[in-house]
């Protein structure tokens, strides 16, 4: 059912209410299913992958498949749980196989049912719900669970942690931690391996103070050598995470809930959350109870068979040739071999173990490791490049001219080539150092492409999460799919943990080219019209296309509309035609249809214009009255020096605007937003110029101007920068003697960039003129949704200066005219649509049955 969140613990990948499926069983004429019965115990990544591989080989006709899963959920990508914890991914986005998928493929999913034991003589599975299920072939994929080191006071009862203690293994663990993170301030994470560090970083991102307690002498000791671990520690500590090494947590301080922990050396740490990520252990109880041979894991042979000929084991619960794997790639290999065997596709298929290579990002640091991490014989070559200051530590181990191990920390640009050399034993360069760095003799990757993409063998795996090879990607490109996004959609490459996206992009570019380097679609202004911006603007002007539907009819392939192109075209047409543009409400994004910013619960925000952040008591009183009259759930001062009324019902918008009697502040559009100002010269002791008035004048002139992306400005009266002008799309700084500096291309959002100094001018009028020219140049030349902080470096500051300061292209008069046309076309949308709706039901609610607001009132 997804994210409506009515149920306390919704089933991940569950079915929408009211959907039912008609089953057409593959029965023969007698109504008897003659297929063999395949039972999979475990619905994690390994179990579900086996089922997928079996189905892919036509196994749906051979087997009636039943999958037991202890969790109630569909199958999800466990690797991504740390991203969910970090808030980077929504839990719905990590679903690999929803309940629907099982139903659609005729697989019976027994979700939320634990298997107790298997009677291997009678060939029956006994589950905790009392059912007995017969099988012909059985696969154990019970995975692993968190290892819980012994500590005093950890448990409240036999089976229940003290409140505030969490494992980190399942989506339910993750949900519980997310809920707790919102309420607590201090967390201790036990375990300084990959999972522990990811948990620590994620919790820190929720504002918690985090300390990591690690029993080993260096972080990630499974993967890194001590030097690498020391550098990682430095990087982690620079993020503000405290690390305690070579000590254990011996006691949890309670008694009602977690209050802190005590370390082996006697130190105590206050904490209200304790996360245990000290490694994993195979889950082997079912195998043990069933009399199947277990050592560390369930012992299997090269055909993944246990000591019972009809019982197999795969994944983290399986022990093959003494190895228990905890990575996804070996699990995929095992699933393929097992599916070959079960379906008879290759009756001689064998699994011979995996060479494990991993590439990941831990606590913001790129890490890639493969094979051994230090030399083992006197004759082994060992090359190390260590740059502690940059947090970079690179090493390779070479034996008999073959790569047997590599560790890359902080810089993983060489991982593609090294993985290939490691997997295939391909020849190594004589100059070993080129394994780790590109030397500055021009042989390096000055074109930004990794050396080695072309040389990668076709069957080398690019996406380890979804088992996509280079050949799969090349085939998809060859079949005509030439966008990176398209290839990712089709192959699922890069849709797991995402760490291979860069490599996928390189391979797509390599496979798609010849001479063409760029995917043509990337140069299109909007995805639905195959024209770059200059050609699109020329065609619109030449053919006099005044509306979005006219543009589609004239310029789109087959005249077809494209939903995702409409917003960009509306903006472009308004810029080109000004008041002559023929409006079409369906071509606008909802924000532009109703002149407010849509919120997560379908309500809107109302931000009246407060020019330069200067308001009056009368204005404030009116805003207060309106907020009370319409029971506005939240009134918030914005970062743009305005007042935001949040949680407003769509149907209330026109009346609110009318009561406010203030123009729109355009806090919702891809348009000119605000001009922040400091108090300038009127009151400030330090002010060198009247920044407040200049800010108001700028906003008065450019209010509501649409653009490829939002434009945020600021003016400050001295270089103390109280209104943050250095990090604005256009920032103006008074520097004394009547002079003003104009900065462009600054940013302080997801990207931080100090603006580039475009010019120093000597009057407010000159600031306004130059600002208008820059904004118009940006409007006419930037890509859709390209902010100035990307636009300015792309075009180059020198070129922009050449055009705007020296009229190097002779277009200044055109720029001024174009901007003036837009300024003349300005109307306050609140005054306009508030009186007479643009279309019937423009302000009708779109969610009539949902109680509003769903976002909690503070």
């Amino acid at each position, binding site marked *: 059912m997804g994210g409506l*969140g009515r149920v306390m613990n919704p089933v991940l990948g569950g079915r*929408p209410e009211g959907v039912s499926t008609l089953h057409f069983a593959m029965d023969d004429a007698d109504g008897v299913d003659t297929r063999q019965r395949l039972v999979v115990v475990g619905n994690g990544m390994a179990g579900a992958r086996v089922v997928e591989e079996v189905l892919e080989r036509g196994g749906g006709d051979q087997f009636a498949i039943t999958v037991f899963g202890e969790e109630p959920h569909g199958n999800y990508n466990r690797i991504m749980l740390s991203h969910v914890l970090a808030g980077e991914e929504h839990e719905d986005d990590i679903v690999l196989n929803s309940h629907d998928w099982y139903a659609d493929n005729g697989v019976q999913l027994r979700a939320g049912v634990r298997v107790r034991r298997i009677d291997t003589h009678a060939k029956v599975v006994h589950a905790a719900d009392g059912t007995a299920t017969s099988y012909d072939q059985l696969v154990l994929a019970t995975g692993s669970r968190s290892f819980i080191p012994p500590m005093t006071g950890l448990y409240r009862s036999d089976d229940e942690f003290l409140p505030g203690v969490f494992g980190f293994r399942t989506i339910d663990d993750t949900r519980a931690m997310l809920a707790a993170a919102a309420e607590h301030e201090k967390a201790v994470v036990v375990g300084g391996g990959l999972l522990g560090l990811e948990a620590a970083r994620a919790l820190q991102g929720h504002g918690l103070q985090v300390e990591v307690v690690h029993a080993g002498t260096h972080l990630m000791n499974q993967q890194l050598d001590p030097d690498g671990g020391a550098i990682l520690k430095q990087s982690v500590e620079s993020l503000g995470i405290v690390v305690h090494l070579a000590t254990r947590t011996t006691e949890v301080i309670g008694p009602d809930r977690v209050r802190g922990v005590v370390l082996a050396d006697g130190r105590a740490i206050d904490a209200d959350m304790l996360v245990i990520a000290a490694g994993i252990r195979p889950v082997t109880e079912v195998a043990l109870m069933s009399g199947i041979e277990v050592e560390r894991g369930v012992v299997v042979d090269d055909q993944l068979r246990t000591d019972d000929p009809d019982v197999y084991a795969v994944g983290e619960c399986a022990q093959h040739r003494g190895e228990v794997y905890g990575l996804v790639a070996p699990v995929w290999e095992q699933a393929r071999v097992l599916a070959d065997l079960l379906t008879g596709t290759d009756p001689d298929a064998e699994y011979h173990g995996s060479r494990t290579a991993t590439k990941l990002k831990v606590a913001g640091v790129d890490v890639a490791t493969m094979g051994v991490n230090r030399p083992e014989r006197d004759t082994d070559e060992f090359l190390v490049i260590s740059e502690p200051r940059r947090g970079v530590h690179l090493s390779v181990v070479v034996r008999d001219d073959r790569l047997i191990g590599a560790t890359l920390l902080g810089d993983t640009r060489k991982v593609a080539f090294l993985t290939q050399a490691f997997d295939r034993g391909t020849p190594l360069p004589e100059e070993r150092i080129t394994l780790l760095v590109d030397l500055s003799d021009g042989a390096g990757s000055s074109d930004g492409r990794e050396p080695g993409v072309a040389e990668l063998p076709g069957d080398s795996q690019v996406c380890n999460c979804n088992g996509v090879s280079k050949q799969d990607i090349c085939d998809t490109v060859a079949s005509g799919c030439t966008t990176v996004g398209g290839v990712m959609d089709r192959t699922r490459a890069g849709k797991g943990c995402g760490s291979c996206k860069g490599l996928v992009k390189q391979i797509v570019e390599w496979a798609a080219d010849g001479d063409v380097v760029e995917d043509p679609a990337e140069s299109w202004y909007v995805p639905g019209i195959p024209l770059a911006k200059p050609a699109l603007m020329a065609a619109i002007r030449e053919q006099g296309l005044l509306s979005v539907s006219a543009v589609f009819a004239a310029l789109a392939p087959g005249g077809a*509309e494209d*939903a*995702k192109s409409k917003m960009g075209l509306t903006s472009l047409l308004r810029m080109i035609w000004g008041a002559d543009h023929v409006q*079409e409400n369906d071509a606008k994004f909802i924000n532009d249809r109703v002149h407010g910013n849509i919120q997560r619960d379908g309500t809107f925000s109302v931000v009246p214009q407060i020019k330069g952040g200067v308001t009056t008591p009368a204005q404030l009183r009116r805003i207060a009255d309106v907020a009370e009259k319409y029971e506005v759930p939240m009134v918030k001062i914005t970062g743009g020096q305005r007042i935001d009324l949040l949680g407003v019902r769509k149907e209330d918008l026109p009346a609110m605007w009318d009561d406010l009697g203030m123009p729109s502040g355009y806090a919702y559009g891809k348009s000119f937003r605000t001009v922040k100002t400091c108090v300038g010269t009127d009151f400030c002791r330090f002010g060198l110029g009247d920044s407040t008035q200049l800010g108001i004048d700028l906003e008065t002139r450019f209010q509501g101007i649409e653009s490829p992306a939002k434009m945020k400005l600021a003016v400050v009266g001295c270089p103390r920068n109280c209104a943050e002008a250095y990090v604005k799309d256009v920032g103006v700084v008074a520097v004394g003697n009547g002079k003003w500096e104009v900065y462009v291309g600054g940013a302080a959002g997801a990207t931080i960039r100090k603006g580039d100094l475009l010019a120093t001018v000597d009057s407010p009028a000159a600031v306004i003129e130059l600002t208008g020219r820059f904004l118009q140049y940006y409007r006419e030349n930037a890509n859709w949704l390209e902010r100035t902080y990307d636009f300015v470096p792309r075009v180059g500051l020198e070129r922009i200066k050449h055009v705007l300061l020296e009229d190097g292209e002779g277009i200044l008069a055109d720029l001024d005219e174009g901007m003036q046309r837009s300024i003349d076309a300005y109307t306050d949308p609140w005054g306009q649509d508030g009186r007479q709706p643009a279309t019937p039901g423009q302000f009708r*609610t779109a969610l009539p049955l949902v109680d509003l607001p769903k976002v909690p009132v503070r």
Partner: protein
Amino acid sequence: MSVVDQSTTTAHVVGRVDDVPLGEGRAFVAGGVQVAVFRLRDGSLHATQAACPHAGGPLADGQTDADVLVCPLHLFAYRWRDGASTSGAAPVRLFAVHEEDGQLVVDV
């Protein structure tokens, strides 16, 4: 895809065709169920569940073309043809909708 059992649906008049401007969507209640009804520029009518299966966004506020509906909150797209998401979300539920003497009739 799953086969939706349609044998038990009932027709509901939810409003007039003119209530839905060309190219836009509007939300209605049909037999106690929230539906979003869309009238595309080619004149065709479509109806879906009103809340996006991804995060509950108001689908009637979304943008459309001949192939897909795009939710306004996170831009997940759903195909008219079968309700499947082109962006990896759960599918959206579709309802049959047609015009009768200027009235919008939705089968729920």
